[in-house]
């Protein structure tokens, strides 16, 4: 099974499994965060898991690739959904439905990269149920939101039996479908530094709104004619989303013209070694990464300029 490729887990479903009904599990829908954490700890032996929107987890359970013995449903836990601004930080509660984030004027102003990216996450019906926290905790290597929080250097707040802690995005994604969350920890909110413009989220998918083969989250900030800040993250090119630090460094101080962007894209791709799958070989993923880095940066730069 190729790491870093979307859907890799789902292909196992042909391996002797016919099912498309989930296996049995016990279930609770607590009303407080402490109760939820307590249930996760109590049922750790049964492989307890959090249920957010279920848009990633339930298909896996239908395929019987995930078989948690206990589901802790967060739908009734107060205080986990909502969008608010705290100075230079945009805070999104983990249980905020993606559709709400998509529609939010606050998000559009404070972090338009999020707005653009979230519109590319599957389709409206999935975004109506799916949550920001659920998508991040699922950590699909080709998913949009992990790349976004990585590009924004967001902080992810987790609550567990030992209290609350803040995990930088750069440390949150540990492998394909793997995060730094402990089994009894629950992601409660994402704290995104405000970056009001100079953004672009672009991706290549084979079918409209299907999972991305390669996705690029690009952010630039210009001072006069010079780029003074750049942040670029990619999805679909490794076991986790990756930051393209070499590209970012290469852009600093440049005007962000075509040549600078091309050079940055080339540098970024040189650091990548994606795996291939039936949708795209490793070589094609590198090609697509380079193309979308270029297109994404061009768009981000033009938006940065327009905002002066």
């Amino acid at each position, binding site marked *: 099974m190729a790491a870093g490729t979307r859907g890799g887990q789902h*292909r196992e479903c042909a391996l002797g*499994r016919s*099912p498309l009904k989930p296996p049995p599990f016990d279930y609770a829908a607590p009303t407080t965060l402490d109760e939820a954490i307590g249930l996760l700890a109590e049922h750790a032996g049964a492989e307890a898991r959090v249920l957010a929107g279920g848009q990633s987890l339930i298909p896996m359970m239908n*395929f019987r690739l995930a078989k948690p013995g206990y589901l802790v449903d967060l739908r009734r836990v107060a205080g986990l959904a909502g969008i608010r601004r705290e100075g230079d930080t945009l805070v999104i509660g983990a249980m905020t439905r993606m559709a709400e984030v998509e529609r939010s004027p606050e998000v559009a102003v404070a972090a338009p990269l999020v707005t653009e990216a979230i519109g590319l996450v599957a389709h409206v019906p999935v975004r109506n149920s799916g949550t920001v926290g659920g998508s991040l905790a699922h950590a699909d290597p080709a998913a949009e939101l992990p790349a976004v929080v990585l590009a924004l250097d967001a902080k992810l707040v987790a609550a567990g039996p030992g209290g609350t802690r803040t995990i930088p995005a750069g440390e949150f994604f540990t492998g394909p479908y793997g995060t730094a969350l402990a089994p009894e920890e629950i992601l409660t909110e994402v704290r995104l530094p405000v970056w009001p413009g100079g953004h672009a989220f672009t991706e290549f998918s*084979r079918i*409209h*709104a299907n999972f991305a083969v390669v996705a690029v989250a690009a952010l630039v900030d210009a001072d006069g004619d010079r780029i003074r800040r750049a942040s670029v993250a990619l999805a679909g090119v490794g076991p986790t989303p990756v930051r393209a630090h070499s590209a970012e460094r290469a852009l600093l101080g440049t005007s962000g013209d075509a040549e600078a962007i091309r050079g940055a894209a080339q540098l970024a791709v040189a650091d990548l070694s994606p795996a291939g*799958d039936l*949708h795209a070989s490793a070589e094609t993923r590198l090609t697509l990464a380079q193309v979308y880095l270029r297109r994404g940066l061009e768009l981000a730069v033009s938006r940065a300029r327009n905002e002066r």
Partner: protein
Amino acid sequence: MTTVDSTTGDRIAADRAASAPPVRPHSAERRWVGQSIRRVEDPKFLRGRGGYIADRITPGTLHAAVLRSPHPHARITGFDVAAAQAAPGVHAVITGAQAAQLCDPMPDFGPDPTRHTWRCLAAEKVRYVGEGVAVVVADSRYLAEDALELIEVGYEPLPAVVDPERALDAGVPLVHEALESNCAYERSFDFGDVDRDFAEADLVIRDRLRWHRSGGQPLETVGAIADYDPGTGGFVIETNTLSFTSYLFMVAAALKVPVNRLDIRPAPAGGSFGSKLFANKPAVIAAMCARATGRKVAYIEDRVDNISNCDHHGSDRLYDVELAVMRDGTMRGIKIDTIDDYGAYIQFGVGHHGNALAQVTGPYTIGSVRYRVRAALTNKNQQGAYRGFGSEVNNWMLEQMVDKAARELDLDPAAIRRKNFIRQFPYYIPTGNVYDSGDYDKVLDKALELADYEHWRAEQKRLREQGRYIGIGLISAQERSVFSATEFWFWFDEPAAPVTSTPESVSLKVDTTGGITAILYSCAFWGNSPETMVAQFVAEEFDCDPYDVAVVYHGSGDGLPATGPGGSRTTVMLAGAVEGAAGKIKAKARRAAAHLLEIDEDDLEWADGGFGVRGDPERRKTLGEIAIMLHLFKHSFPADMTSGLDESQVYDHPWTTMPSADRKDLGVFYPFMGHACHIPVVEVDIETGAVTFLHYAAVHDCGTLVNPRSLAGHIVGGTAQGIGTALYEEFVYDTDGQLLSSSYLDYLIPTAMEVPELAIGHVETPSPYTPHGVKGGGEGGRMMAPAAINTAVNDALAPLGVRLTELPMTPERILTALRASRKKG
């Protein structure tokens, strides 16, 4: 024999003239045929009351789930089912070995069924990933799937055969040891004088082409609910597939019951596109489980069951082709060498190639054909039917060759086609099949106009200067309709079963109030509109409102032989059956009316829903007045007139002839020939390999249209599936035989964003031989689109020296081709 001497030629011509049905005059005035009326089927579907198979499961019905093989090729060494049997809610666990005792092999029209035996569950060996090895019956599907996980199967993996060319090599693992080969069929046919045509040609165009398998994948899977009555020893099976009722004796044999103890009742199908054609495995599994448990059992495939185990993957072909042409563009002959990867079984033999041979030379006056076909068996799910049934692949292959010839001869794509168009009808192609009528220039003209062809050529030039790659595809190709059974056996000099019946039956009942009911047998609802079509035909015959016609589907136990949808036969066959039954109704009604009006039958004429006296129309009897008398007042009529007013027509294929003994003439087997031209305009993003549509014009000629809007809907839907085949859909097996595309995450079905709005045009060149001049047309969209889109992409990439010869044209394949051409420099 290199030439047909004049005596033989005359005799052939005379035989052909004799076998053709009479040319029929067609009424210029039609009231209902030709109207885009709302479909009579719709109200129930719109309200969620469609009555699909899964909707018919009653409380207390048990549910089956099938355990499938994770290995592409393995011996089954043993089972441990004890834990599964003891699991909650489980009523039975049946392994493949046990099933082999309970059931005989599945119906199989392949070349050698005793040696490539196909069973409802694998017995001693599994031959593809997903093949069923056991079935669990439980109180619910959830519990059945729980129990599946408790079954332990011993497998001894064997090396898998995946590549169809390698499968034919010596010394490779055998899919069926008993067959002693992975080549299930091989033969080469010559039609016309191939060697002469090639010797005389100015140029031979060569190519190697690859079409990978995709499939119908309707949103509803195949399902069955079976009930066994130990008292009668018979089964009643509800299922969303009912076709070829005369061949259901084979299903009865599989279930080891007499034919007249098997009653299969059709439920409407949520789509088929061929994949529900004679799809009897779920029915056999459900029935076997019903008999074993003594309870009603439902087996509804889930999506993964269906993708991996449906027995209806589409064609999977490799072609080596040579086209002999003259410098002026005249096409003389074609040599086709094709290997078709049939998977692990071959239920329909090479009938898919019969579909190809029906129109192998397209709309062109190509004079000779050499056709070599090899059926390779591999460790994959077997092929079945998919819209086009193997003819759409031939269309694609031929049009790529015509396209290549045009480029090499520096001829305009429309011009080279016009140079070779058939213009005299009926026209017999080299294989012996006939094209009844057509007007290919008219279709091409209309398509060019609809496509705004000159505008797009100018745009192409303009945008190329901006570094954008626009391509215009243009194909003209055939869409045959109404197959004959001969195409499944003329492959053999001594076929085991040279069957020739493909009837369709309709019964019409006029009730006491004059209301009409039409009964269809085996003509299941697939999303085509048999009810609307029949209602329109009946309304045309009897001057009634089509919405007043009741249409019901009877099960196999209720009687008349029928074949069902397939090969776009429904329109013509229902038209003929309705015409026949209506004629009998009118004959009896005329006689009754004559008696009631005390007048000679010859003095009566049918008009406005009844019989009236010629010259004195006030003296008339409506159908209703006649009907009530016939139903209730026997003594008002001559003694030999029976009560009631209902008649049936078993309508056989109106034009099919036997192949010659030497197989140089395959006879007429697909005579009602439609035609179409598709002109898509695409843009290829050469950085990503993405293909987007800028425009798409499609003009079809399927003879007289019964419901133009319905046909247009089929054109769009078929084109959408063709887009899938051309760009997105593929059942991908890796080199180890693992099925990588086993869910909709990886088997990519086009959404509304991948399918453009089509500009649709209709041309109606009636068939001289069918009621109203109708021909079939349901498959046409998919029979054209892959060919058209391939030529469009190639047109876009021609300046870069890139030509795609493999479908689907995925971004991977396009980028790989672009990289290769850059390396060549």
